[in-house]
């Protein structure tokens, strides 16, 4: 029986010319497990919000067509009524928490609906058991890991007993182990609760075992995908051939980062243990590992943000305990996780040339290089726009240009590919690969095993504040498998495991 029926649905955001969704048709059965994928900016979240009834609230209607959920026209009910039927979970659970503790958060919706206290307590226990998070009951939200937060976000929505659960990239901030965990719980929830679940997601490999109905959103329209495996853009093959031959040995090159017996303690908690590491010129290094294993802290320490209690770090000939971060700026480019935190100026051009300007290096050569990079990344037409008007992917590209323009020898990147589709991801990895081939070094925190395998020379795998694997990419994945971190293996290995 068709439970969700979308007929000829189009939606244009207020102030935009081109519609984000165009004459879209889709029918989903009750209890289906559906995955919607598509490139960044293709309108996946918009579709999710449409089904959840959020797009029918504009003062003047910006839509045409109809969306029916369980025979109810979503345009004709209030948002409150819509939210009883369809629960929409936003990309980052942090963004949707309204309270401070796990129990308050789950109770929040029920309290708003004036359910009595006894019922609420019963419901809290029930939904926490469903998401297998009963042990989290008495915790503060701030102390939870990313995966645990996502579980609580799901539980707080399940408490409202919706018919449909929509999750917008629920695992984008999670490591592969936590991702697998969330997918497993969702599959279990769908089976035990007879819920219809729609997941908007890029990580199709890890969804494979659950055999979801998969649709791809392209140019505003949906197409069913018969095989999850086929999701690799055609262009990537050429890129792959180009880069796999570049297996030069870097051993004799000059070391850019030297770390000896480093321990780092933050807020009384030891985050990094006994780190020993050398990274030399020309290397493209991937830093992998579960959430909370210390990857970001390691990068931050290399950049001199944390006090070093024992051990030593030398970054591009600067001993970190003695020098200030500002001494490193000329030699090191650093990209933080959230693009919004690192856009300071009023135009794309200013942003791209910001560091060079601060370093008094902005000559004509550098300016033409900026033009060249902006053109290469497809941002030249947006040169005079405000950086915060760009899309997420565009901001990320601008971050990359901004960090690279003054040609630092070392690029430290704390996750670049979150929420990016494979075509974009390949293009960016290619740019970074080329950069290392020009005599520079890149250290990239990356959860994407396929891309790591294809592009990176070396893998550092961290767990619990220690570097447990430090090997060339080809060797590293064998060790990762032998140590049992299967969720971190590339898709080919997944295919083999689930064959």
């Amino acid at each position: 029986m068709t439970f969700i029926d979308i007929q000829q649905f189009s939606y244009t955001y207020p102030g935009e010319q081109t519609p984000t969704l165009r004459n879209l048709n889709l029918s989903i059965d009750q209890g289906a497990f559906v995955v919607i994928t598509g490139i960044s900016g293709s309108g996946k979240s918009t579709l999710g919000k449409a089904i959840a009834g959020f797009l029918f609230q504009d003062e003047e209607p910006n839509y045409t067509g109809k969306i029916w959920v369980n025979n109810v026209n979503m345009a004709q009910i209030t948002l409150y009524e819509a939210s009883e039927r369809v629960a929409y979970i936003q990309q980052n659970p942090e963004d949707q928490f309204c309270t401070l503790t796990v129990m308050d958060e789950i109770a929040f919706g029920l309290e708003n609906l004036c359910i009595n206290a006894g019922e609420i307590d019963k419901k809290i226990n029930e939904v926490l058991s469903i998401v297998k998070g009963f042990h989290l009951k008495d915790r503060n939200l701030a102390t939870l890991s990313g995966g645990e937060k996502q579980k609580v976000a799901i539980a707080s929505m399940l408490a409202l007993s919706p018919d449909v659960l929509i999750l917008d990239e629920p695992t984008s901030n999670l490591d592969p182990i936590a991702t697998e965990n969330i997918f497993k719980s969702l599959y279990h929830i769908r089976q035990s609760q007879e819920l219809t679940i729609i997941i908007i997601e890029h990580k199709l490999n890890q969804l494979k075992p659950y055999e979801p109905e998969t649709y791809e959103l392209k140019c505003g329209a949906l197409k069913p995908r018969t095989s999850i495996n086929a999701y690799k853009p055609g262009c990537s093959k050429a890129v792959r051939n180009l880069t796999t031959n570049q297996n030069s040995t870097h051993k004799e090159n000059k070391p850019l980062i030297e770390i000896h017996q480093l321990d780092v303690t933050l807020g009384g908690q030891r985050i990094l243990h006994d780190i020993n590491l050398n990274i030399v010129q020309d290397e493209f290094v991937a830093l992998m590992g579960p959430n909370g294993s210390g990857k970001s802290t390691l990068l931050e320490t290399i950049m001199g943000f944390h006090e070093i209690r024992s051990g030593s770090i030398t970054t591009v000939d600067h001993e970190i305990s003695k020098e200030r971060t500002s001494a490193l700026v000329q030699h090191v480019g650093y990209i933080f996780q959230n693009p919004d935190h690192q856009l300071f100026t009023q135009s794309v051009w200013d942003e791209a040339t910001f560091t060079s300007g601060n370093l008094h290096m902005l000559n004509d050569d550098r300016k033409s290089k900026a033009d060249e990079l902006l053109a290469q990344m497809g941002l030249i037409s947006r040169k005079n726009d405000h950086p915060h008007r760009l899309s997420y992917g565009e901001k990320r590209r601008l971050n990359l240009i901004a960090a690279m323009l003054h040609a630092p020898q070392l690029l430290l990147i704390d996750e670049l590919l979150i929420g990016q589709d494979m075509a974009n991801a390949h293009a960016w990895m290619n740019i970074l690969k080329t950069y290392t081939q020009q005599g520079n070094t890149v250290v990239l925190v990356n959860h994407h095993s396929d891309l790591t395998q294809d592009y990176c020379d070396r893998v550092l795998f961290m767990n619990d504040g220690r570097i447990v694997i430090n090997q060339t990419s080809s060797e590293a994945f064998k060790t990762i498998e032998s140590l049992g971190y299967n969720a971190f293996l590339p898709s080919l290995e997944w295919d083999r495991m689930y064959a």
Partner: protein
Amino acid sequence: MHKLAYQPGNSVIHRLYPMTKFSWLIIGSFLVFLINNGVILFVLAGIFLLMLHLINREIWMVRGFRLIIFTGLLLLILYLVFDKSGQTLFDCNIELFSLTSGGMNTGLCVSGRFMAIVFLSYLLILTTDPNHLAYALMKIGLPYRYGFMLVTSLRLAPLMEEEGRTIYRAQLVRGVHYDRSNVKKLFLIVRQFMTPLLISALRRADKLAFSLEGRGFGRYPGRTFRTQTNPSILDITTSIILSLFFAMLFLINYGSLI
């Protein structure tokens, strides 16, 4: 240095119901204005200080705490030096350094009241989870829209602080120098700091609004609350003891006048 914020613990004061503590803060703040004996007030401030010290040995390291004590003592000294009313208690040839009963009592009163109220507030802040207080206030009738303004700001404050730190670091790695000698440049840098912070705050507010609406916030004029801790026998006993304690202070204060 520590921040002035709630610190989890298991003392008697920690275990009191938030509203009990809040009510006694209000009552206490009024009562110290009814007492006019400087010595009593000063001793009272001393008792509160001792309680603070017992609850948190590191209270002296809380930012601003030493300034409070310094201000309190400075007030006392200023009255002693400049208020020359009443009988002379201690006479030396230089007028500025002689002590009078009027200056002494007014000084002890003002300084004692100031410190008593501040220490009492510190006791509340250090031992009460503000989230519990907000929920307790909503349960006794504070409109829940205002209550949740407090809850969400409590939730967002640490996130914004973390964001501020990241933005500062992001500026640092892009070669920004906080040069205090050049006011114009400093203004520009502060603007560059505030822009991402403000945009991020607005974005968060937008997403939060989304989440609130999606979960029926504001659908009904009232709302229920899950089972939470309620006032216990401890609160009643404490309130009785405190009432007796203040009654005794009044007796000493006004009894001596008769």
